[in-house]
């Protein structure tokens, strides 16, 4: 599985021009200038699945992956997780309980980062506007990828008008959010199944810390480790490394993107490591700081910005 030759072939498939050697790519200036918003650490090494690339290259390649999967994203999520991702997302939103304010109707501002297709944002609006009867909750969907945002915009057209008017879209890099999002301006910052694709996670966490109000919550749902249950872990690994790329090939016609997906899950830090990263960014951790879903296939991490 991790044979370097196989991976190189795969990278070649994904990017026909990428048969130049690794070192060449490190110093390639054309690639960096194509990156939408170069970050200060664009030349630093990070990983893309099992490969090691520079941050700017990762950013571009992730963009390609998600441009390629945007159309089939929802269908694929259902197939890969056997529908469980819907339960996770519902639980995630209800555990945050947006819109429950005293007195009722106090405005809240939510930023859903890497939320292109709107799965979380639409649930937030439903929960806040309908379940909690608070129409003054506003959600901004931010994504670095215009293709994913386009899917979200399209899907948002079928929402009730009141929900649509409380929704806005923003194309932005989570590591350097635009100045239009002021310091200490948000109640809630969410990122679901997105943070593992970030080139520089600590920078993104710092940025989250900057934009949240004191007492605001950073909440992240991400694939995680199932190490606690060895037998289930074996089944899960088998599923993710054999079945998911195959489903990707058959349904979305794109094996490589889904191969990247499972590799990036494997590379993502464990629950406790990621919790420590959140604490490092300045957030306070409550309790053990994370909640395992389905035995740890996914985990919800939360941090609160101190007063």
């Amino acid at each position, binding site marked *: 599985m991790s044979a370097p030759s196989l991976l190189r072939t795969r990278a070649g498939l994904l990017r026909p021009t990428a048969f130049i050697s690794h070192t060449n790519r490190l110093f390639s200036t054309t690639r960096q200038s194509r990156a939408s918003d170069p970050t200060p650490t664009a030349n630093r090494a990070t990983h893309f699945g099992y490969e090691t690339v520079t941050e700017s290259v990762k950013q571009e390649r992730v963009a390609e992956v998600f441009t390629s999967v945007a159309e089939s994203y929802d269908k694929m999520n259902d197939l890969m997780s056997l529908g469980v991702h819907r339960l996770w997302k519902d639980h995630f939103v209800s555990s945050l309980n947006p819109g429950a304010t005293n007195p009722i109707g106090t405005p809240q501002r939510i930023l859903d980062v890497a939320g292109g297709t709107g799965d979380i944002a639409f649930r937030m609006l439903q929960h806040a506007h309908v379940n909690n009867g608070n129409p003054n909750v506003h959600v901004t969907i931010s994504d670095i990828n215009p293709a994913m945002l386009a899917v979200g915009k399209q899907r948002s057209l079928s929402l009730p008008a009141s929900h649509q008017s409380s929704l806005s879209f923003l194309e932005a890099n989570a590591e350097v959010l635009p100045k239009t999002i002021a310091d200490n301006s948000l109640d809630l910052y969410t990122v679901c199944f997105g943070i593992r694709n970030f080139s520089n996670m600590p920078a993104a966490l710092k940025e989250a810390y900057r934009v949240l109000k004191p007492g*605001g919550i950073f909440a992240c749902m991400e694939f995680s480790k199932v190490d606690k249950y060895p037998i289930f872990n074996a089944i899960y690994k088998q599923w993710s490394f054999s079945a998911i790329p195959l489903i990707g090939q058959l349904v979305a016609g794109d094996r490589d993107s889904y191969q990247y997906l499972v590799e990036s899950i494997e590379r993502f830090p464990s629950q406790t490591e990621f919790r420590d990263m959140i604490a490092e960014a300045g957030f306070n951790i409550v309790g053990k700081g994370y909640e395992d879903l389905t035995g740890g296939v996914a985990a919800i991490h939360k941090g609160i910005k101190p007063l």
Partner: protein
Amino acid sequence: MASPCISRAARCLASTARGPIARKTATAPASSPSSLCRRQQQHYHSYDHPSTPPFGPVDREILAAAYKHVPEHGFSLRAIGLGARDAGYPDISSGILPDGQFSLIHYHLVAQRERLADRSRELLEDDSLTSVGDKVAALTWERLVGNRDIIHRWQEALAIMAQPSYLPKSLAELAALSDDIWFLAGDKAVDPSWYTKRAALSMVYSSSELFMTNDRSPSFLETRQFLHRRLGEVQSVGGTVGAVGQWVGFTLNASVNVLRSKGVPI
């Protein structure tokens, strides 16, 4: 099973070292810090029981403020939301609590258990409490009195505590409470009765608590009588079981000896 008593003492230390609520309530006029645990802190240190604080600074602050709203709003998300607001946090902050409403119930359980440890010294100075059994009764009653202000909300809390995801934590709290009571009463037993005592007291306490939720008598007189009847039963049943056990043991031993004297190779 190394000496349970010592491990209990160690845990007591850990709980003071972490001081989840003791530290918080230390500022409140009514309660004094747990002198009992503090005294021992100088003598023991436990590596086997690392301190795992049940509450950190943020959740403690929110829950302590929310706890004041329980008599009016119950153990509810609304009470937590109001508490967060009182503590100066924005409304969204209550979403940080890992178990929602159960966090507030857990706070009540831990706070009352620690209040009991603080009160115990004063309570046990009373000379009329001579036997360990009397002390256990007094401490259990004192803990039940801790439910006085929220007793009209306690049935809903019990329903939440019985939910499968919260049941383990609820039972662990109950076990910790009966452990505390036996420890504070000065029980030094390290034989198997260590377990039966705790199991029996857990049963007595939880049934008395349930009785109390429906008790309308002045200052819960009926609950008190109920508690003493149950404790009496446990003692008489325990005594009977002990006597029967002794008799069975003696008889078996004697029969073996009789058989041996007849030349049976046992």
